């Protein structure tokens, strides 16, 4: 028996050693060979906390704050820690129904049992003040401060744009992989154009958490952490007071007002009417307010200065005159009879020179000018001759920034349209059209289409006597104090400075002696302007471009009032008040203000 059992003692020892060997081998496999446990251990304890940079602020040209970041509070929940005794009281406190509560909690649980997820978004400051004392009674719920865009004035909504959660589509297009789901991004206006400058740089903090998600200090003492860099502040070219004033003037009207500083291309005011409160598209009521604005028949979201494509009307006669002078087909002294059999006209005049023709807006005069421009006998064939003429004319027109987008720092800019021979070939057939087919262009009708921003730019070009800077709304980014490169570049038209004099003189006369445009006339400032009336199915659209003072102009502008009747009636009045307010800082013409304010120009 002892013999047998002594062999068994070795079996027993062997068993012990065998089990130990299996353990050592298995341990080698999971500790040394398999690295996935290390990764899993890290993902267990490391929580990546994004440090959101504060978004850049926007100031107006005088340094007044326009856009800032207001604190809002998200209520977060960690389902694991929730221990609610009185759900009804909780729901009452946060103003949600019990069903909503259950639904939100379920969603949070589906996301993670131990990680925080947002329970209620964007609790306002007031609600936060009332609930923060009660939060201690609700384990598992906590407040996460965040910021929302907020606006100091109820103005400039159409230019500022708004921010919101990044869409799926934008996420997919984000090739730099900067954004994460739930990030806020500029969606329109300056917020989207200057997104890269405003957003700043995200920082990251790696912290260690225990199994309940409770923080246990920095991972590797913060060696991998990065600080967030706040976004750059922007200084806008807009004069916020002026902007608000003009928005008030435009109340009850549809249209746009754009004012520029001619010497720099800086946009002083940028009004689209009707407008809306920028605060309404920030915060938790965003979707409700957005759909309300979207369904509004007056289209408040339609950014008229950039998107409203209209025929320019009579203001285009200034361009016709300038091109003709440059081409040498007329001189300032050239006169044409006001032959109303070829095209209708208005007012008592019969045989004007260029200055007079602009002053009285003589249609036959510019019919003749345009005919000379298009048909110069270069070719025997009238059709071909017209085509050559149209091409040469179009070159000049394009140099005014017409026909293509100017490149303002706002999205959704439209370029309008300057007709090409190809268009007429398509409309009428090759060699089937000539001057008499397309003469409407002579007086800014026909196939011409421009947007109000281009009209204001035209005023600036005339004010500058031949050049312009691309209009822009941001004059200084961060501490650099410079606008973007492309806004520092002078663009010359094809017209020599000397040719502007008769046109400027004519425009000065318009304001001095014109029938409706006297509303733009000011006591101490010599205003140059040009009215336009664009035929429409209902009441005509009213257009007015102007700059002032005549010498060394400080402001150039366009006013476009839809259905505003004779251009002078509404548009010139607004232009006058705007110039006065900008140059003198105030207006004494309260009667004019009242006239503009009470005028309801659409229903």
């Amino acid at each position, binding site marked *: 028996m002892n013999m047998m059992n002594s062999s068994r*003692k070795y079996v*027993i020892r062997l068993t012990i050693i065998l089990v*130990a060997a299996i*353990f050592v081998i298995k341990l080698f496999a999971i500790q*040394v060979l*398999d690295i996935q446990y*290390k990764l899993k*251990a890290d993902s267990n304890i490391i929580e990546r906390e994004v440090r959101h940079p504060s978004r850049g602020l926007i100031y107006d040209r005088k340094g007044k704050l326009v856009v800032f970041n207001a604190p809002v509070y998200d209520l977060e929940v960690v389902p694991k820690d929730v221990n609610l005794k009185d759900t009804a009281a909780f729901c009452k406190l946060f103003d949600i129904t019990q069903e909503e509560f259950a639904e939100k909690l379920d969603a949070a649980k589906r996301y993670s049992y131990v990680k925080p997820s947002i329970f209620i978004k964007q609790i306002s400051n007031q609600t936060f003040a009332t609930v923060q004392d009660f939060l201690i009674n609700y384990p598992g719920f906590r407040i996460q401060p965040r910021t929302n865009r907020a606006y100091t004035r109820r103005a400039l909504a159409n230019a500022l744009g708004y921010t919101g959660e990044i869409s799926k589509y934008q996420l997919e297009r984000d090739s730099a992989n900067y954004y994460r789901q739930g990030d806020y991004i500029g969606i329109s206006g300056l917020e989207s154009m200057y997104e890269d400058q405003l957003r700043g740089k995200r920082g990251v903090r790696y912290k260690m*958490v225990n*199994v309940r998600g409770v923080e246990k200090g920095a991972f590797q003492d913060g060696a991998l952490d990065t600080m967030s860099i706040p976004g750059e502040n922007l200084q806008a070219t807009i004069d916020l007071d002026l902007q608000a004033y003009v928005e008030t003037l435009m109340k009850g009207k549809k249209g746009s007002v754009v004012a520029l500083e001619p010497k720099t291309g800086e946009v002083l005011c940028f009004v689209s009417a009707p407008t809306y409160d920028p605060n309404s598209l920030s915060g938790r009521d965003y979707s409700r307010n957005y759909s309300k604005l979207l369904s509004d028949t007056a289209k408040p979201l339609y950014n008229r200065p950039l998107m409203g494509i209209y025929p320019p009307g009579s203001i285009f006669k200034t361009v016709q005159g300038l091109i003709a002078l440059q081409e040498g087909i007329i001189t300032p002294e050239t006169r044409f009879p006001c032959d109303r059999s070829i095209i209708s006209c208005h007012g008592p005049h019969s045989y004007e020179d260029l200055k007079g023709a602009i002053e009285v807006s003589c249609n036959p005069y510019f019919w003749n000018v345009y005919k000379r421009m298009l048909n110069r006998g270069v070719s025997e064939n009238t059709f071909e001759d017209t085509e050559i003429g149209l091409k040469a004319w179009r070159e000049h027109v394009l140099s005014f920034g017409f026909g293509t987008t100017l490149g303002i720092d706002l999205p959704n800019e439209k370029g309008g349209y300057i007709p090409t021979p190809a268009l007429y070939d398509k409309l009428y057939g090759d060699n089937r059209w000539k001057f008499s087919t397309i003469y409407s262009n002579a007086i800014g009708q026909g196939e011409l289409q421009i947007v109000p921003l281009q009209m204001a730019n035209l005023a600036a070009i005339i004010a500058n006597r031949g050049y312009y800077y691309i209009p822009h709304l941001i004059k200084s980014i961060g501490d650099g104090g410079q606008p973007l490169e492309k806004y520092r570049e002078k663009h010359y038209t094809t017209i020599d400075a000397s040719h502007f004099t008769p046109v400027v003189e004519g425009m000065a006369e318009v304001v001095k002696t014109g029938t409706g445009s006297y509303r733009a006339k000011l006591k101490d400032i010599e205003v140059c302007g040009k009215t336009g009336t664009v035929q429409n199915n209902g009441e005509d659209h009213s257009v007015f471009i102007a700059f002032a003072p005549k010498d060394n102009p400080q402001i150039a502008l366009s006013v476009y009032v839809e259905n505003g009747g004779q251009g002078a009636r509404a548009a010139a009045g607004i232009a006058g008040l705007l110039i006065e307010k900008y140059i003198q800082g105030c207006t004494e013409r309260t009667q004019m203000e009242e006239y503009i304010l009470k005028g309801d120009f659409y229903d």
Partner: protein
Amino acid sequence: MYGENTNGRIHFKRRFLRLREQNNFINRLDWGVILLYFLLVALGWLNIFAVVFDVQQQDQSIFDISLNSGRQLIWIATSVGLITLLMLIDFRFYDSFAYLLYAAVILFLIFVLLFGREIAGSKSWFTIGGFSLQPSEFAKFATALAVAKYLSHNNKAFESIRSQIILFAIIGLPAILIILQGDTGTAMVYSAFALVFYREGFSPLLLGIGVAVVVLFVLTLFIPQLYLIIAVVVTSFLFIGINTKKTKRIVTVAVAAVAVICVIVSVDFIVTDVLKPHQQNRIKALINPDADPLGYGWNVTQSKIAIGSGGFWGKGFLEGTQTKFDFVPEQSTDFIFCTIGEEHGWIGSMVLIGLFVLLLIRITAIAERQKSTFARVYGYSVAAILFFHFAVNIGMTIGLFPVIGIPLPFFSYGGSSLWAFTILLFILLKLDAHRMQILNRAQ
């Protein structure tokens, strides 16, 4: 003068002999085992501190008795007292009072079942003052003594069915009582006596069948029933094919095959109807912890992550993150090995396993050198119980064994288990130190 002198000399001689006897006792103690014991206890204590250590609290003391590490130090100190006591008790006591101790423990187990306190689902605790005591821990050494005693006066125990039944009853009784307490894990420790029985001449065939059933049971969890049955049938035919001449062999193989197939078919029934849901889950977690890593797979998954993330050298003392941030459950007690794995890596794990192997081999060697059956059987019982704890405890933390809540001897936090293991081990050392006298007495 002379007489006085002789008297004095005799007196001196007596004193000298007594001194020598004491010296002999000290010398005969197995200091290797004692060294290993204190090494394991001390390392355990350090690791318990590593578990409770909080990175964010600056001056935490390992001696703070509000922490587990401080309390464990009290258990260690009292264990040293216990050891002294055990050494002072006459070695004949254990032999003589083996059945009485056993009976007392059984009574305790019944008492605890009736009046005990329920902690974590098992009703196996007595609470006296602020301390909780777990009688089932102490049942182990008492049962070992009883088994040793029984085998010491039944030389041919494994040749009679009756004495085999009595033997199985001795280990079965406490096991059943402990199962009734709801602590299946501790009850399973009693299966470790199979190793003792094997050493003492129990048929390896029956043991082999027992092991085979367990292996088969586990296999059915991994492999579809049908494949197993096909495999059994094919193997049977192979056996028969080799020995076609012997009809007896054919019958034996056929019967065995049918029995095996019965076991396979019954597994489904056992798993779904006999085992409790949490026991089923532990088996499922062993097979595929990834199926529900946040649910029943949590313990095993997190335990493996903690150990696996330790790498070759480990993260360093007090640098573990998984154990420190509570990802591993029961980390001071049942999952204490995770701390070793995480903070001391493969090297540390290997050292710990090495210490246990040394201890276990040493104990089997001590058992082998006993002159009396009683001491030898007791020695193997100690080895078997410690081995079972060691194998199952570490096995479960690295996903080789279902999660069974039993502590790592000398290492895990807990007074009852440390005391019980200390008693278990030092009774053996006491018996060992007197092995020569035991021999005399037996003769």
